[in-house]
């Protein structure tokens, strides 16, 4: 709808108030952290958008050149603070790839369970904040109630509720306490009806559809050009998920699990879950689809966790111990991308023989996901800006590093 | 204190109508802003309305005398409705004038083009 409005140069508008330059953020309630967006608006219509980042820059990569790989782990959960476990996993796998060692089958199973639990938690925050930006406060409360239960489970394992530093390179310091998996199963069972409630309040809600369907349409080519990854890319109809198409050291974790990659292939979703119907106004690649892909991924993660728990309890091997503090890194470099909830999180470590890496580079998924914002928001109303921003689900810690 | 006790008659209303009318005329004459002139017109119309209603009101006349009856209120009603329509058109003209010359100053509107 707003695509052809932008193309036609004769934009007819009612009363031409002169243009206004409006700053949204950095402390704006709906910019997900410290992002400043400068809008050039004409009345209600946004003609130009310029995001400004860097307010949360902590030079994480430079610090990595002073610390050993194990000491640096706590910094990785501060990148995407809503999905700390996935960041730790990415860092751990990259170090293992550099050292050329593999962890035991049982550790890999535990890592799958914990990574998918954290993915559910991150997607819950995304769904809740999306509803909050569109004005409905209640789903935000529901999603955070569920997220608290997941965070309690994590607290049992590693004592922390947000910055876990649990999945160390080489293994984990201590396995989950007994009865943990039972509580995990109990959480999943009571979580099923909550998803249907969220569908009822948001996905199928006529007003939600009117506010998101057809808004901020990201064509597949533009998504690929801007390097968008994760739910943003899949919502544009590109069937690409690193858990299936990634490097062997990462995909072997998911061997033997039956699950599906969620992406609207020519407008249809893989129908293994009785999902609500796609509304007619929704165009592949719009805000509604980005939201819907995340909701279906939560269901896939639940399948993965249940299968993970079965395989973990069936396997009577041993959990590996992490590498020692000052392990010498070989001379050389390793780069690995993993499927974090927001998109593909890449870590590159260049070792020079000593225990401290010579250079570390972090490829952030949210940085690429936010870059098409000026394209998406041209000719859109002011009220749609937060909707598009929330659908991209960005975290500033990861963008500014 | 006689004003508070002696009943209100037609001439009191006519005096108030006259005051409003004169304020409207002066406002139209002296304001440089287009909308100021518009407000002057509104005041003039209200002055006239007040006289119509006063003449048509049965409360303000001695018992039995004949005023213009309901016609006063009827004409006042038409004046109110038409003033609304007139304000709509006047505002449209003012806004298009504002677009053309980026100002609402009446003195600047001296050339005939546009």
């Amino acid at each position: 709808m707003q695509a052809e409005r932008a193309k036609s140069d004769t934009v007819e508008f009612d009363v031409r108030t002169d243009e206004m330059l409006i700053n949204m953020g950095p402390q704006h309630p709906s910019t997900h952290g410290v992002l400043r967006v400068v809008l050039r608006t004409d009345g209600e219509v946004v003609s130009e958008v310029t995001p400004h980042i860097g307010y949360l820059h902590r030079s994480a990569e430079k610090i990595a050149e002073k610390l050993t790989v194990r000491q640096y782990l706590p910094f990785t959960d501060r990148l995407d603070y809503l999905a700390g476990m996935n960041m730790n996993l990415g860092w751990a796998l990259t170090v293992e790839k550099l050292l050329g060692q593999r962890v035991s089958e049982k550790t890999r199973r535990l890592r799958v369970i914990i990574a998918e639990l954290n993915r559910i938690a991150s997607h819950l925050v995304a769904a809740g904040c999306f509803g909050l930006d569109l004005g409905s406060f209640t789903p935000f409360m529901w999603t955070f109630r569920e997220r608290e239960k997941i965070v309690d489970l994590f607290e049992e394992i590693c004592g922390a509720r947000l910055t876990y530093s649990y999945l160390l390179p080489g293994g984990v310091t201590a396995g989950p306490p007994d009865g943990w998996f039972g509580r995990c199963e109990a959480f999943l069972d009571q979580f099923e009806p909550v998803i249907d409630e969220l569908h009822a309040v948001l996905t199928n809600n006529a007003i939600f559809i009117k506010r998101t369907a057809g808004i901020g349409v990201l064509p597949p080519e533009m998504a690929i050009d801007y390097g968008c990854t994760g739910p943003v890319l899949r919502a544009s109809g590109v069937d690409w998920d690193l858990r299936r198409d990634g490097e062997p050291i990462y995909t072997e974790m998911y061997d033997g699990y039956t699950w599906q990659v969620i992406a609207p292939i020519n407008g249809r979703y893989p129908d293994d879950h009785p999902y609500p119907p796609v509304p007619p106004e929704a165009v592949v690649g719009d805000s509604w689809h980005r939201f819907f892909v995340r909701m279906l991924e939560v269901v896939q993660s639940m399948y993965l966790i249940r299968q993970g728990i079965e395989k973990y309890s069936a396997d009577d091997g041993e959990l590996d111990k992490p590498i020692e503090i000052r392990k010498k890194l070989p001379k050389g470099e390793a780069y690995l991308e993993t499927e974090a909830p927001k998109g593909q999180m890449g870590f590159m470590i260049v070792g020079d023989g000593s225990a401290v890496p010579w250079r570390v580079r972090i490829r952030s998924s949210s940085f690429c996901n936010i870059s098409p914002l000026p394209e998406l928001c041209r000719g859109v109303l002011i009220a749609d800006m937060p909707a598009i921003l929330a659908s991209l689900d960005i975290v500033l810690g990861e963008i500014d590093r | 204190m006689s004003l508070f006790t002696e009943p209100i008659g037609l001439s009191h209303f006519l005096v108030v109508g006259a005051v409003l009318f004169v304020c409207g005329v002066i406002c139209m004459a002296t304001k440089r802003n287009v909308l100021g002139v518009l407000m002057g017109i509104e005041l003039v119309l209200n002055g006239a309305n007040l006289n119509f209603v006063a003449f048509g009101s049965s409360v303000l006349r001695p018992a039995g005398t004949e005023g213009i009856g309901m016609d006063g209120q009827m004409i006042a009603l038409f004046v109110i409705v038409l003033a609304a329509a007139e304000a709509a058109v006047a505002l449209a003209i003012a806004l298009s004038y504002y677009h053309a010359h980026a100002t609402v100053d009446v003195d600047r509107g001296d050339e005939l083009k546009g």
Partner: protein
Amino acid sequence: MAELLISISTPDWLAHIIAALVQCALLLAIALCSAAVGIWLERKVSARIQDRLGPTRVGGRFGWLQPPADGLKLICKEDIIPAAADHILFRIAPYISFCAVFCVFLALPFANGWVAVELNAGAFFLLAVAGLEIFGVILGGYASGSKWSLYGAMREAAQVVSYEIPLGLCVVVIILLTGTMNLVAIGNQQAGWFFNWHIFHDPFTFVTFWVYVTCAVASSNRAPFDLPEAESELVAGFLTEYSGFRWVFFFMGEYASMFVVSALGALLFLGGWNGPVPIASLLGLTPEHGAIGGWINTILGPIISMLGLTLDPAAWIGNLLGMCNFIAKAFLGMTFMIWLRWTLPRLRIDQVITTCLKYCVPIVSAMLAGVMLWSFFLPGGLFAALTQPASFPRSAWERTDSTLRVDGPQDVGEMQEEAGTRNVTALRSHAEHGNEGNIQEESR
């Protein structure tokens, strides 16, 4: 009241002024109480929807004293006036907005005859005064000087002005049905069982009720239509610069207007003070006195006459029941609005205006035409037609065509006067719903 004061020899004009001020204070108390209970209700209902408890500590288990506590806290807050603000307008705006809503309480009847000022054009006065509330908001938005509050004010003005039209039309539909704008008369016409309520009068008024609900929610800036305070886009709309006591007035204005709009809806469509089952009339608690009414009068009569009050106890108790009915319906309406607010996301400004102009106005105009035709064919409404089919359309047709025949040529002036008088007699007979006697006399 005034006589009481004169009896203790205060000067005549002082007595009247004091009496007037006391009545104003009482009315203001009603307005503030309705707003305060509205705030408490909002906290509790929204808490229940979000799986939490809501206020429980302040004032007993259910947090009754939360609204006064909020008021106290806000009064102590510092009143900041931004430098770029236009001082006088910035201060006046909240009071204008609250006065407009307060004026509505003047003409709002709580029970049969229990109204501050019984106006003949009551419904029209309510609509007129409800329209003034936007001035407070526009001035507040413009006077705060900041770009964002100007945006909020412009949006709010556009929304409330455009929603006044369908709201007015819904009220006109009911006025057309009842034939009078006097709110007390409208309420009394819906006495008896619940199917006498206007909402069940005919399918058109039923649809009009739902359009009224949409417009009411939109015109009091609630739920899916609360653009001006859209936190996510414009921080807090025109309320950004307001803090402390001034903000309380805007806040009170909003909740009082919520109560007013749902009360008006209850009065026009849901029978006002008449409950679903007419307990008062069944028990005889009405001015005509049934069994119990007479019995109560014999007991309470002497006590009341001794106190010097001139009121009929039975009818007074009946009215009391009526008032409870009315207030219960109003708060039901408020709960519905609160329920809407905490489940639905917000609409965009252009969607809000299109729902108004493309959906509400056409539908309610169609309903207006429908009710006109319906009340022409079925004067008593659906249930009257079902219960006495005999007096149904034939008499309506017969009455009009018999009077419109013109017999014999007369000079124009005479005919014009004749037409004038004939129109009047036709309308008078039509207005008295065609009792048989009149028709015979008409067609001789």
